[in-house]
């Protein structure tokens, strides 16, 4: 246990250290302005003169102002403790039914993510089966699947939302479709590889039994593809979450992580944006974690994990 925890803690503390140290130079100009308004003497004494002074130099000449860089209401870069406090306030400290609750916004994004992931995974597996069993589909579908991922989703998402909106489809489904669009691809690629993973000898063995194609699929190809499927699902679920958030950005959605990020940006509340960002990252980590646990449990049951 210690062996795996220690490296992770090391990396996390290094990142946190870089973050904490960056807060001072990022916010020192804002903090100096604020201090001056509060009646503290600052050198140089005008904001315009301070613009010409580098962040580190300004911090060294006004050491008394440095602690303030961690407590600004609208910092350029909030300190980790500010983000943590905002996260706490908007999850544990707020009623779930409130529009300010990140749990509420999280559920809005998560429901679109899960629906989109379901659609994307189903589509991905079906396409993979088609590609493996039909030469025509192999030649025709794969290039389009690859091409689909080269289009920037940020450009495509508003078009999908608007087009579906004009058809009267709103709310969950358009976001879910963007999620599905991002998550089907890793599933197709992984499942094609997985379904093709049995070697020539294993396929010959089935020929000696005169097994049908469907028997080959259910008894050999599908079980053999399971490790590949789980790897794809883990990529797919995080892609689906990104898709749902992207789907919330262009339409001025009122709810969801994407809406919170937008609100924070537009109303100059960086803490809101940062809290939403971290909440989304934590959600993704939990989702991937759940699939890792499922993966380990089922591969162990299948005797494929050592």
């Amino acid at each position: 246990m210690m062996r795996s925890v220690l490296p992770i803690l090391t990396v996390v503390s290094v990142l946190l250290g870089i973050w904490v140290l960056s807060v001072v130079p990022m916010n020192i100009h804002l903090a100096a302005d604020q201090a001056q308004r509060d009646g503290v003497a600052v050198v140089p004494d005008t904001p315009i003169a301070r613009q010409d002074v580098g962040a580190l130099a300004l911090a060294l000449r006004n050491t008394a102002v440095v602690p303030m860089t961690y407590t600004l209401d609208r910092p350029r870069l909030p300190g980790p403790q500010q983000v943590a406090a905002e996260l706490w306030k908007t999850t544990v400290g707020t009623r779930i039914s409130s529009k300010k609750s990140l749990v509420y916004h999280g559920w809005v994004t998560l429901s679109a993510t899960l629906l989109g992931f379901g659609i994307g995974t189903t589509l991905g597996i079906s396409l993979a089966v088609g590609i493996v069993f039909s030469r025509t589909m192999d030649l025709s579908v794969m290039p389009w699947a690859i091409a689909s991922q080269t289009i920037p989703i940020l450009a495509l998402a508003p078009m999908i939302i608007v087009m579906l909106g004009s058809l009267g489809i709103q709310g969950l489904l358009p976001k879910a479709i963007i999620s599905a669009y991002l998550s089907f691809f890793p599933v197709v690629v992984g499942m094609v590889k997985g379904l093709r993973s049995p070697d020539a000898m294993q396929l010959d063995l089935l020929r000696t039994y005169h097994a049908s194609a469907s028997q080959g699929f259910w008894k050999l190809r599908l079980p053999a593809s399971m490790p590949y499927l789980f790897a794809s699902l883990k990529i797919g679920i995080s892609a689906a979450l990104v898709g749902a958030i992207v789907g919330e950005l262009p339409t001025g959605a009122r709810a969801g992580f994407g809406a919170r990020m937008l609100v924070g940006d537009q109303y100059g509340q960086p803490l809101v944006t940062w809290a939403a960002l971290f909440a989304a990252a934590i959600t993704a980590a939990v989702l991937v974690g759940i699939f890792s646990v499922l993966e380990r449990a089922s591969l162990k049951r299948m005797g494929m994990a050592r």
Partner: protein
Amino acid sequence: MISSTDPRLLGNTLGEGLLAGPGAAPPTVIAAKSVDLTFQTGDGPVHALKDVSLDIKKGEFVSFIGPSGCGKTTFLRCIAGLETPTGGALTVNGMSPEDARKARAYGYVFQAAGLYPWRTIGGNVKLPLEIMGFSKAEQAERVARVLELVDLAGFEKKFPWQLSGGMQQRASIARALAFDADILLMDEPFGALDEIVRDHLNEQLLQLWARTEKTIGFVTHSIPEAVYLSTKIVVMSPRPGRIADVIESTLPRERPLDIRDTPEFIAIAHRVRDGLRAGHADD
């Protein structure tokens, strides 16, 4: 999903041996006349097999030995209907190899055990039975019987990775025996195993052959293995793949391991080696 006619087809191949009756000469099970197989490759045609003629009678243990590229595996695959000869005539149980394969006339053992890691040993042996549509009760009964036959009773619930390489290969032999085909085709089944395990498995294979009276085609590149196991040794040579010599073994059917020190054994081994050397002289 599963054709209901399959076990019946199986019954036909089983019945054939009985028709011959006691006292009659054993019938020919596999008949090859001037079999050719040419692969078209980018570098021009490759003659994998040229003018191969051979009869294998019921109950024989026939080894194919030769250097790599001599077509021994290719010929076994032709018998199995996994490759199609480009010339000549080849019949298995009086049918084309393709039809014989569809009638599930043989069990095939590959060089690697190729057990499914997600199935237990019992589940692996059951695989062909599920595909051929045997009833649940019959599946269980057959699995128990063939695992007993290869000395793996009690390992039914273990997963492949819990077994040694030799035990895995025995499980794959059990899998090939499970549906009671008369013919057992083995492609260097013990090639990846160490000498001691191999000796042990050779001894067990002979006992198994004596008990089940199968017709066995066995590809190997080990001279002692071929001589120890076979009633007939087919020496092959490469480019083009062809038969260099066919040796009828004079050893008794009952063969303890130390038979390998007898002058008779050594004489046969000598003849096999001469055949192999002759094949090599012209390249």
